[in-house]
């Protein structure tokens, strides 16, 4: 058995186990959930450390393949390369942190942890899968719990609407992806039809796809995946959905589940359909300006903390798309770094805003102010997270964003300048305003306080630690990522920019 199988199977099997436990054994249920996600985190860290960067170019590691249904060319196939190993690590950290901060859930805990573990295991499985069927299957498996979790444990006036909106919107995107994936699979002649991503990559490398099918499939996949990642103008589900969701759900969804679409674009859409990828890159780079500028400006107007974070998270996805649209080695490497950095960042900000919501019973920033005196720990972490959100050096977002800007500069200076403006000025404005409104000011509070024990503080530290670790040592990621992004860029055929042309410190070789 591969390490990766254990990483996502552990949470899922624990979910099954919890089904059998009577609901009044609340301590047992929570401990089991914590244990399972912690074990999967340890395994993910082990996998990340054992990952052989030098051998990454030779193919996938931790591979396991079992024939599932040969009539369909379906096999259970997992494996990791430089692109998904970091995502799996990030996912495992976020799932564990989300389980940790869910201690405030007191109603129907049994169902909550079953759904949370299914969701976490599902998305980790999607990142580990190298078979189109399981790739889709695991993602969709992670999607349904979101609906029930928002409905049952969600908060706010509009939770009903939010639950339906997020489910219908995302299911529509996922179904578009399904159509696209099936169409891709049918491009092969009947005897060699397979759903195996590795074999498909080899096949399309040797026999590039004809123009006509590319013309049909690429937009379907682009917009399908785009809806899942809240590409402007298909982003409206995100802020309200996250604002209504319980903390753990919002953390896993915004942090991990959303990255599935970007991962799919890099892993499948770009290398298999290079001609259309070059054609659509221009449109994509304009749409992602919508994310960066439009959603950034919307975030500036928000008076609700959750809506601000939601819009800023949508805006951040714009940078990830910008890197993909640059079609260059440096840009796409930057995208993967952003995906990982934003995973930590989004999970951290939702965890913190969830804590504030539980303490203050509101997320309205007009009613906050002066909180730093009472909440020194939460306040410090949140100020750091918000600085990380502006792309401050030292946090993982910075190397990602700067790589993306280098990449997109090669394509179009105008778009790069606009995006940088969005990143530095707009994000700076709303983040600093939020810091001022929430943490400073004369208002006095009673009866609120920081998490008391070290264990309760640990999930925040863990996520912040991830941001700082990869912010100070981005080579831990970039060395792995660029090795495996290089073949993708070669297949796309756009002129590759060598990573070595980037200033030392971000990468050198």
């Amino acid at each position, binding site marked *: 058995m591969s390490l990766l199988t254990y990483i996502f199977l552990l949470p899922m099997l624990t979910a099954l186990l919890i089904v059998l436990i009577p*609901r009044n054994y609340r301590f047992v249920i929570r401990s089991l959930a914590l244990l399972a996600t912690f074990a999967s985190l340890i395994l993910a860290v082990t996998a990340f450390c054992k990952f052989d960067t030098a051998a990454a170019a030779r193919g996938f590691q931790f591979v396991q393949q079992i024939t*599932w*249904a*040969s*009539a*369909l060319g*379906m096999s259970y196939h997992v494996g990791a390369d430089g692109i998904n190993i970091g995502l799996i690590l990030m996912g495992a950290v976020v799932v564990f942190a989300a389980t940790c901060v869910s201690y405030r859930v007191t109603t*129907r805990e049994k*169902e909550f942890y079953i759904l949370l573990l299914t969701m976490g295991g599902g998305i980790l499985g999607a990142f580990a899968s190298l078979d189109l*069927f399981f790739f*889709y*299957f*695991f993602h*969709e*498996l992670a*999607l*349904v719990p979101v*609906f*029930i979790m928002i*409905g*049952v444990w969600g908060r706010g006036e509009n939770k*009903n609407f939010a*639950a*339906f909106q997020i*489910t*219908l919107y995302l*299911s*529509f995107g996922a*179904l*578009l992806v*399904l*159509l696209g994936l*099936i*169409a891709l*699979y*049918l491009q092969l002649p009947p005897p060699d039809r397979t759903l195996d991503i590795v074999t498909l990559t080899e096949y399309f490398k040797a026999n590039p796809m004809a123009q006509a099918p590319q013309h*049909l499939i690429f937009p379907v996949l682009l917009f399908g995946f785009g809806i899942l990642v809240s590409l402007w103008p298909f982003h409206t589900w995100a802020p309200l959905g996250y604002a209504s969701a319980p903390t753990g759900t919002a953390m896993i969804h915004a942090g991990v589940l959303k990255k599935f679409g970007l991962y799919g674009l890099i892993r499948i859409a770009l290398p298999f359909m290079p001609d259309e990828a070059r054609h659509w890159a221009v449109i994509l780079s304009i749409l992602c300006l919508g994310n960066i500028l439009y959603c950034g400006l919307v975030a500036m107007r928000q008076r609700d903390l959750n809506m601000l974070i939601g819009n800023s998270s949508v805006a951040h996805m714009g940078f990830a798309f910008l890197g993909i649209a640059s079609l260059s080695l440096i840009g796409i490497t930057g995208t993967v770094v952003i995906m990982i950095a934003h995973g930590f960042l989004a999970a951290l900000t939702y965890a913190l805003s969830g804590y504030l919501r539980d303490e203050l019973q509101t997320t309205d920033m007009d009613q906050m102010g002066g909180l730093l005196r009472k909440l020194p720990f939460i306040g410090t972490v949140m100020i750091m997270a918000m600085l990380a959100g502006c792309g401050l050096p030292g946090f993982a977002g910075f190397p990602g964003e700067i790589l993306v800007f280098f990449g997109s500069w090669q394509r179009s200076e105008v778009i790069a300048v606009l995006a940088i403006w969005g990143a530095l000025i707009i994000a700076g404005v709303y983040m600093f305003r939020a810091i001022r409104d929430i943490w400073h000011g004369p208002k006095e509070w009673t009866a609120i306080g920081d998490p008391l024990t070290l264990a309760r503080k640990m999930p925040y530290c863990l996520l912040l630690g991830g941001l700082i670790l990869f912010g100070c040592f981005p080579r831990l990621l970039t060395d792995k990522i660029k090795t495996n992004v290089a073949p993708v860029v070669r297949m796309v055929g756009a002129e590759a920019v060598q990573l070595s042309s980037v200033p030392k410190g971000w990468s050198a070789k």
Partner: protein
Amino acid sequence: MNFSSLTLEILVASLAMLLLVSDLWAGPRVRSRLGFVSMAGLFAILAISFNIAPCAPGSADSMLAQDGLALFFQRFFLVTAIFIVFMANLCADRIPMGIGEFHVIVLVALTGMMLAAAANDFVMVFVALELMSICFYVLVSFQRSRLCSLEAGVKYLILSALSASILVFGIALIFGSANETNFVRLNAAGAALDQNKVYWLGMLLVLFGLSFKIAAFPLQVWAPDVYQGAPTPVTAFLAIGSKAAGFVLVLRVLFLAMPRLALQWDKILMLAAGITILYGNLCAIPQRNLKRLLGYSSISNAGYLLLGVVAFSASGSAAVLYYLAGYLFTLAAAFLIIGLVMRDSEDIGTLAGLGRRSPFLAAALSLVMVSLAGIPPLAGFLGKFLLLRALIERGAVDCYCYWLAGVALVGVVISLYYYFAVIRVMYWAKDPPDLSPIAVPAGVRIPLAVCMAAMLYLGIFPRAVLASAMDAVKSLNF
């Protein structure tokens, strides 16, 4: 005369006779146990069916084709009947008189379905369908004291008779123009027949009549009314058995009797599939009665199943079989729960708070809804995946298939809305009126657990059933 190809039908019919006689002679104690006798007998026949090899493929001079396709569907109907008899036992207190007759009529209808599965001749098609329909006239209005059951019975009687007359008119035209009713000989009669306008009209009318059985456009309007009014076990039997019987006949007529003509009519079939999907899904949105909602959902599912038919390929027909297998367990679980929980009213509102009243039932009904919506890891997802795969494969020949796939996609998104609304009511409806726990007898837990396990199995491990479905459709011509 070769009886070997009729073994299963003869066994089922004898079981029915046995029940009928013992209902006359036995005392009340035995009479109340007749359902268990019927179930035991059906289990035995199911076991026997696994020892029968497909023996007689359809030939030019046989009315029955005991091939792989027939055997697949006969097992399907036997499993369905076991669930139906079980549900009838569960609801026996609501059927005031003649529960023994009820079981007998179910078995006779089952015989009709099993004959339909093997039909190789238009005469046999009509005989099998009439055997089924006449049983259903009685079954639908079995709760004689309930007005809406009688109303449903009358509606079903009139519309079914109408569709049967259309069908038999079509058969008459076919016989008049080709002088044949045997599928193999009709197919062999060659291209000359395909030009004959009378023959065309006959085939068209036959398909028209069959669309009643599968509850697809243009004869789908009966489904919601009848589903709502009929006793719950009968609704389940209609939704699973009758629909599957319709589909096996559609497959046989299209791909054995008229494979060339079917290809010419692909646009008509695609149009019917698209309209059926949209009609079923759009009309289901405002429904408040769960059985009525499932009636509309059954229409939309007929549309999805037609996608596999219009793919005109072995993989498409195998997908139809696979989807039906998943549909069987999904709907069986749904109607078991309806029979148990919604005893007085079938309004979705009565499900409010089910998540607290009985977490097991709520979880089972959620799985049903999620499976019907086509979401992994359940049977409905894999079924839809296979259907869409077959349809898009066909898209290489006929680009309208992409549009149809788009329609199906829109339909699935609409259906998520009303299926998930049921889940919403169970878990977070405001002010549930009744929060008393529901006791679930162990006898109900077991079949429900079987259904849930089967839904998961079909959704995760497709290999075995898909292989048998692929095997079964080998007897069709594409």
